[in-house]
């Protein structure tokens, strides 16, 4: 396109066409970035309840350095996935859950050698959410914190693929107090 302009306009006129063409094409830069997810997709994930209470746990154990230890705490919640009418149906293709100790809603990184110990059960009611419907995944979490406390933050990341083969990632964070 620029070569064509140069052949049609020479001298200062040609240089101005060149500047105008460059300036206009510079405005189009974002259009060349191919998104891997659809940020504007209306798919919504919420936690129910939005804030959790943990209760003392017994009977569920983990192994640490050859010792069998009981988890201190247990909590449960649901992640509710809503696909509004303008959202293509999606399939749930992946999920992760990370639990971190907190104090006053601030994540407190454990000292070296210490980690949060936790495990979870997940019970999805389906692996697909149709347009205009909702589906929930139930979670049960057992944990022990390095600071021997109860307060924590759970983050669930869910990965979806819609019927147009677009990958969508949604996260929900739930405080445990």
């Amino acid at each position, binding site marked *: 396109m620029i070569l064509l302009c140069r052949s049609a306009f020479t001298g*200062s*006129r040609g240089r*101005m*066409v060149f*500047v*105008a063409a460059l*300036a*206009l094409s*510079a*405005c189009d830069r974002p259009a060349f970035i191919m998104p891997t997810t659809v940020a504007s997709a209306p798919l919504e994930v919420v936690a129910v309840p939005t804030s959790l209470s943990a209760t003392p746990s017994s009977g569920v154990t983990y192994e*640490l*350095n*050859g*010792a069998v230890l009981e988890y201190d705490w247990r909590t449960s919640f649901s992640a509710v996935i809503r696909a509004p009418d303008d959202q293509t149906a999606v399939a749930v293709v992946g999920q992760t859950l990370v639990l971190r100790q907190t*104090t*006053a*809603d*601030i*994540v*407190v*990184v454990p*000292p*070296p*050698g*210490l980690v949060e110990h936790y495990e979870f059960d997940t019970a999805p009611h389906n692996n697909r959410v149709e347009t205009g419907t909702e589906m929930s995944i139930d979670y049960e979490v057992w944990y022990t914190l*390095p*600071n021997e406390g109860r307060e924590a933050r759970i983050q669930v990341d869910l990965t979806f693929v819609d019927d147009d083969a677009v990958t969508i990632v949604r996260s929900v964070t739930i405080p445990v107090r």
Partner: protein
Amino acid sequence: MFGRTQRALALIAVLSVTGCEEGAPTAPTSYQRVELSVAPDPLVAVPSTGVTVTVGGSTFDLPWKTSFALIMNLPENASPVDIAILAVNVQQATDGIVVAPAASDDERFRFTPRPQANRIESGGEAVVEFDLWYLLPNGGQEALVTLTASFDTPAGLTTSTVDVQVAP
């Protein structure tokens, strides 16, 4: 000097370039760094008994304890932030110089932060008090404590760090 066509092209060029600056007239929101300080500085350690930490199946007594306050100040022109993450590291030191221990012989420590809130308003201050118990491979009390705080801002997560010495 310039003909009508040239003036029109020049106008297109100017308008096109300024058109790219759509966001410029809006005053940018400031995301300045949160300033960290520690009081007292330097820290003073006192002997401690009864506090332990278990790492890798081994339990260690932590013979030293120090207490301090981490002070976080946000400039007046900065947007409010949430304190998202706090981390502490302890390294043994001699005459103010960090002395890395042998690979298998790490510093052991545990700490208790006591934040009063997790939000700092513009021009505001947040204080988190800490108790820190530690054991150094060289058996001494002189150490360098590094405090790292990460903040949730409208622009994403930002991190600030401060070092403070524990006096010998």
